[in-house]
C-alpha cells in the first residue's frame, strides 16, 4: 500500500487533485449545478404529477453538465498550466518519465471527477428525499455511466491539450463531445440521405464513436428495466476510448519540446 502511495504516478495524481480542489472556477461551477438541482424542485411543482421525474431528470443532467465542464476544464488546463508556468521543469528533473506525468495527471482528474459525481449524487438524493420516502437506487447505473462518459471526455481533452492551446483544446473537446452526443441522430440522417458518401460517413461515425450509449437517463427516470449489456457494453467501450486517447496523448506528449 505504501508502495502505491509513494509511486510517482500517484504522487502526481494526488497533486493534480489538490490543484483542482483549489480552483475557484470549479467551486463556482459546482454551486451553479447545485442551484440547478434545487431549481428543479420548483419546476417539478408546476408540472402535472411529474415532480420526481423532473427532479431526477434535471438532477442527472446537472451532474452530467457539471462533470463535462470540469472534465474539459481540467483536461485542457492541467497540463497547459504546468507547461505555461514551467512547474513541469522541476518535475521533469526527477526520475519520472513523461508518460508517468501524463497518466498521473489523468488519474488526478479522474479522482476529481469521482469526488464531484459522488458529492452531486448525495446532494441529488437529499433533494429527492423531499419528494420520496425511499431511495431510488435505480439511478445509480445512469450515474455510473455518466462518470464513465466524463472519463472519456477528460481523456479526449488531455489528448487535444497534448498538442494545442487550451482554447483550441476546449473547442475541439466540446465539439467532439457534441458530435458524440448526436451521433445517433447523425446516423439517422445518413440512413435517409441520398448522398452515398455522407451516408457511409454518418453511419460509420456512429458505429465507432457513440457517446449516446452512456446516456441511461431516460431509462432510469421512467423506471424502465436496465439490462446488463446496457451498462457493461458502454463501460467496456469507455475503457477502450480512454485507452485510445491516453495512448496517443502519451506518444505526443513524450515527443514534444516544452518551450
Amino acid at each position, binding site marked *: 500500500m505504501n508502495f502505491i502511495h509513494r509511486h510517482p504516478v500517484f504522487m502526481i495524481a494526488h497533486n493534480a487533485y489538490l490543484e483542482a480542489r483549489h480552483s475557484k472556477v470549479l467551486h463556482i461551477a459546482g454551486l451553479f449545478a447545485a442551484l440547478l438541482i434545487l431549481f428543479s424542485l420548483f419546476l417539478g411543482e408546476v408540472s402535472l404529477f411529474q415532480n420526481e421525474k423532473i427532479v431526477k431528470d434535471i438532477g442527472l443532467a446537472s451532474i452530467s453538465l457539471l462533470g463535462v465542464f470540469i472534465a474539459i476544464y481540467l483536461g485542457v488546463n492541467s497540463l497547459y498550466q504546468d507547461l505555461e508556468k514551467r512547474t*513541469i*521543469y522541476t518535475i521533469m528533473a526527477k526520475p519520472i518519465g513523461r508518460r508517468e506525468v501524463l497518466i498521473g495527471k489523468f488519474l488526478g482528474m479522474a479522482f476529481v471527477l469521482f469526488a464531484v459525481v459522488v458529492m452531486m449524487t448525495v446532494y441529488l438524493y437529499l433533494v429527492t428525499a423531499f419528494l420520496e420516502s425511499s431511495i431510488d437506487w435505480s439511478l445509480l447505473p445512469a450515474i455510473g455511466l455518466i462518470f464513465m462518459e466524463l472519463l472519456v471526455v477528460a481523456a479526449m481533452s488531455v489528448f487535444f491539450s497534448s498538442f494545442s492551446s487550451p482554447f483550441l483544446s476546449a473547442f475541439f473537446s466540446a465539439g467532439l463531445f457534441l458530435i458524440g452526443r448526436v451521433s445517433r441522430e447523425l446516423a439517422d440522417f445518413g440512413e435517409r440521405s441520398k448522398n452515398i458518401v455522407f451516408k457511409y460517413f454518418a453511419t460509420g461515425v456512429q458505429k465507432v464513436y457513440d457517446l449516446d450509449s452512456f446516456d441511461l437517463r431516460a431509462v432510469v427516470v421512467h423506471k424502465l428495466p436496465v439490462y446488463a449489456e446496457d451498462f457493461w457494453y458502454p463501460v467496456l467501450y469507455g475503457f477502450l476510448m480512454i485507452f485510445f486517447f491516453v495512448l496517443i496523448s502519451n506518444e505526443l506528449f513524450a515527443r514534444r519540446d*516544452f518551450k
Partner: protein
Amino acid sequence: MTVIEVNELSKDYRQHFWTPLRRVLDRVTFSVQESEIFGFLGPNGAGKSTTIKILFEIIFPTSGSAKIFGKDVGDKDVKAKIGFLPENPYFYDYLSATQFLNFHGGLMGMDHQTLKRRVPEVLELVGMKGTERMYLRSFSKGMLQRVGLAQAIIHDPDLIILDEPMTGLDPLGRREVRDLMLHLKSKGKTIFFSTHILSDVESICHRVAILNKGKLLSCGSLDELISVDVKSVDMVWLQPNSEFRERAQRIDANLIASPESLFMKIERGISESKADFDFRIQGFVQDGLQKGVKLQSLSPRKESLEDVFVRQVGRLETRV
C-alpha cells in the same frame, strides 16, 4: 571524472510552423568535471537555458549529444543524482513549504522518515527556518528562489544544476547562495550554474564557459581566460606643471585634469609586449618625477572577467 559531457549540441526552433527554423544552439561542446563549480555565462538569449533544458530532456536536441555521469540525459538513475533549480521558478502555491518539499522529495524516491528529518535541515540551510507551515503563495520572489533551491538539494544530489540562481535575490541573499554553493562544493558536490552576474562567477567558479547567440565562445579555467598581464596603468599626479601637462597630452592616454591634480589611464597597445609597456610606463614616471611632479598613486590594472566577457561577446555583431 567527467560529470557533464556536452558534445556538438545544436538546437533549431521554429516559432510557428510557418516560420523558418532558427538556430538557438550551434554545435556547443564542453565538459564539467567532478567537484567543481562551473559557471555558464552569456547574455540573455545566448542559449544557456536551452542547454540546461536539453540536459533534463525538457526539450530535445536537433543534433549532438549530452551525457551526465557517462549516461544519456534521460536516464532515471542519472536524474536521481541531480538537483535542479529552473530560472524564475513557479511552484504550486497552494502547498506549504513542507508539503512542497515532501512532494519533490517523494518524487526523488525519499521515504517519509528521511523527509521528516531532511525537510527542516534543508530549509535551515537555505535560510528559511520557521517557514515550514507557510504557504508558497505568501512567499516573496527571493523566498521562492530559496525554497526552490531547497527542493534541488533535498535528496543530497551529487550534481546541482542551477539556472540563474541569483535572480530575484537581494545582495545578502546572493551572498548566502554563493556561500551555500561553496558549502556544497566542500562536500564534494559538482555545481553547474548559469548566470550573467560576473562577480559571482569570478568569486566562486573554477571554470567557465561563455556562450553568445548559441555559440560557445570560450571555455576554461578563470586563469586560462583572464590574462595575468597588466592591461593598463592608472596614475594620479599632484601639482602638475604646464610642461608635464603638455607631455601627458602628447602620449596616448585618457586624462582627467584639475588645477591641483592629473589622473591618467595609460592602456597597453594590442600588439605591445609586456616588456615594452613596462619600459614605456617606467620612462614616463621617471620623466615626471624629474620634472618635480609628485606621483600620488600608480595602480596597474589586470584584465577582469567582465573585460573578457565584453571582449568575447562583443565579437559578434548584435545581441538578441
